[in-house]
């Protein structure tokens, strides 16, 4: 199958969207796990962060894949949104979407945009900082700086609130997105009911957990 047909058809786009979403979910899980460690032990958090920051496979293979994955996901999100808007040229005078579908499912572009704005801030906060530290200033390796850097970020109440708000929207994004991606890749069978419950649990627990971590460091220090 050629590359062009791969993304030309609606179903191929749908599947690509789902795979990128699932990829982001697995990344998010790992990220959550590492952040959670910061609540329990500064040492464990430091050593994990150091590993992630200096391991060549992570830095030069996984990180570029992640960046491409994120960009692919939101660019495709925009493409689909525009195509879908164009598929209805005259709007309904009365459209009762709430009668048959969830708000989260109808507004993935809104929750996505908020998450995207958050990602901008987040990249500026941590990723840009890392790049400057390692490659611009070329400072010496310090395996214990991560915890204090993290804590310093959450001193600001504005940042803590912005982070928390973004995670509420991420929860909505995942509320629909988690289960949607399985449906997209064709997974709909006798296990789906159980998987749906897991999806909803994930969509709540992970973002709420992130909020907890932000608040924990804000109030603890």
């Amino acid at each position, binding site marked *: 199958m050629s590359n062009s047909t791969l993304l030309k058809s609606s179903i191929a786009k749908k599947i690509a969207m789902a795979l990128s979403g699932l990829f982001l979910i697995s990344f998010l899980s790992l990220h959550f796990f590492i952040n959670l460690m910061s609540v329990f032990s500064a040492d464990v958090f430091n050593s994990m962060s150091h590993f992630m920051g200096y391991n060549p496979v992570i830095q030069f293979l996984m990180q570029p894949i992640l960046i491409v994955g994120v960009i692919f996901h939101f660019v495709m999100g925009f493409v689909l949104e525009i195509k*879908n808007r*164009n598929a209805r040229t005259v709007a309904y005078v009365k459209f009762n979407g709430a009668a*048959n579908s969830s708000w989260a499912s109808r507004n993935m572009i809104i929750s996505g945009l908020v998450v995207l704005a958050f990602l901008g801030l987040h990249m500026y906060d941590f990723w840009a900082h890392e790049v400057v530290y390692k490659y611009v200033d070329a400072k010496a390796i310090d395996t214990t700086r991560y915890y204090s850097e993290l804590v310093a970020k959450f001193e600001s109440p504005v940042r803590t609130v912005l982070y928390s708000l973004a995670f509420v929207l991420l929860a909505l994004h995942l509320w*629909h997105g988690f289960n949607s991606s399985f449906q997209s890749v*064709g997974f709909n069978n006798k296990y789906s009911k159980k998987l749906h419950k897991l999806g909803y649990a994930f969509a709540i627990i992970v973002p709420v957990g992130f909020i907890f971590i932000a608040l924990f460091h804000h109030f603890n220090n």
Partner: protein
Amino acid sequence: MASKTINITLKIWRQKNANAKGSMETYKLDNVSTDSSFLEMLDQLNEQLINERQEPIAFDHDCREGICGMCSLYINGEAHGPDRAVTTCQLHMRKFKDGETIYIEPWRAKAFPVIKDLVVDRSAFDRIQQAGGFVSVNTSGRTMDANAIPIAKVDADKAFEAATCIGCGACVATCKNSSAMLFVSAKVSQMALLPQGKVEATQRVLNMVKQMDEEGFGNCTNTGACEVECPKEISLENIARMNREYMKASLKS
């Protein structure tokens, strides 16, 4: 027992022809029996309009018993109105209150252009069907009896459920993306589940999806609105099956 009657206000989309600019017009209709169907109510309104020497409202209908898929109408923001698992012709006026204002609009999708008033052109569905929604049967005289092929009950039931799709287009109308995935997946599934349909399965799903895309329908984002509004309760399972069929077919071809 005398049946109850209600007085209603209707806001209805009027459009002279495909190229005219349409608008919502307001009509008052009194003494509507709650036992009448939604289409009978429109008949009553049309009689009133004809008596007033006005142009009656054009709307699609045929069987008036929920089997032909001809009736449509976006009623108060929902395809086939507020009731579940019914077509507009099966919708009763007892679902509405006395004094209520009811909005009636045509299916809205670029792929379903308005022909007149509430009538839209759904021939895009026909072209999707023609692209592969069939099983080629040799009729030269040695046709095998379909019943001679054993089919698992589960598969037969699922194929039958998919085959109950009447092609009304409510799924497209209700979808915020104007996606035709529920319709197409029902037509793909009904064949894909049966041995007779397996022969042409690869080309069928590829061709039907290609035609669906060319007609200008939007992309499914799994909101699930179609399944809720579908008068025949076609399941989202069919869309998942079509996605699997599509992946299989793409890898094969």
